[in-house]
């Protein structure tokens, strides 16, 4: 198990929490909470060690597109980058639907 931390510059605050995904093999859950901080903070717990660069790659692209200012808690159970991307997209949809 590995714990990863990332910070990103972000401008778009959120006003309510969002929870997508599930605790299941090959999947992940993503929790977004409003924050008072200046940017986005991510805490990732992953069962698959040694993928820091892969995460960075996925997240760079995500924050380029969605500069969401929030606290991100991600619990990963061996999801593929494709599943990670889609869960993050789903979190954006959930934000949009409820606003």
């Amino acid at each position, binding site marked *: 198990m590995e714990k990863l931390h990332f910070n990103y510059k972000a401008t778009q605050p959120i006003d309510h929490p969002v929870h*997508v995904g*599930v605790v299941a093999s090959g999947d992940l859950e993503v929790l977004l909470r409003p924050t008072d901080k200046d940017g986005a903070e991510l805490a990732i717990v992953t069962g698959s060690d040694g993928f820091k660069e892969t995460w960075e790659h996925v997240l760079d692209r995500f924050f380029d597109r969605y500069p969401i200012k929030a606290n991100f808690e991600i619990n990963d159970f061996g999801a593929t980058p*494709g599943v990670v991307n889609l869960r993050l997209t*789903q979190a954006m*949809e*959930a934000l949009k639907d409820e606003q």
Partner: protein
Amino acid sequence: MPHTLIKLKDPTLLLTADPLPVWTEKILNLTSYVIVRRGEQQDRIPVGIRGFQKSQRFGTWIHPDNWLAAVTPQQALQYLPKLSSTRRQLKPFQTLDAITPLLKTYEWGVGGSLAYELVTGIEMARPESDVDVIMTLPKQRITPHEAQHLIAELRTIMGAHADIQMVQGQYGFSLEEYAAQRTAEILVKTNEGPILSQDPWQLMTEMDD
């Protein structure tokens, strides 16, 4: 189909450009079983090799003829009586025994480390191992409400999370996500990557298999 264990004819004939990690050699000396992964199967079958560590997973491909036997998650359950009484006392195998009566009306089986140990005889399961239930999508739709009820019952045995994957061909979604109805769309894993669907049940029922 994904999650099926297949016994290779020749474990040295893997179709991969990347060099094999050292641990894969060790494990392939112990067993010639690999696990089918999701993905296109036209000229080659995507498979995964698993090692003793959670980080030891290696994705590769095999020629469609390079196999001798295949064991589905459902067939893996038939190996339970052959398991030694010591191993059977391990928590996840106890859990597997305990959920069996609850699932008797469904077509289901087991994946992950439990299936691997049952079929290969290699002691891969740990006390904290997850019980990955792989269930064939029933013809009769389970409503989200019924799914919530089943998940709640399973949780009392399996703990906080009941990992039930509903599958049809290469498609699969989480019963827990379907039951929770937290989002309008559910993630469906397919041979071409994951997609979001408002009604995965309908989507998968309409599939030709």
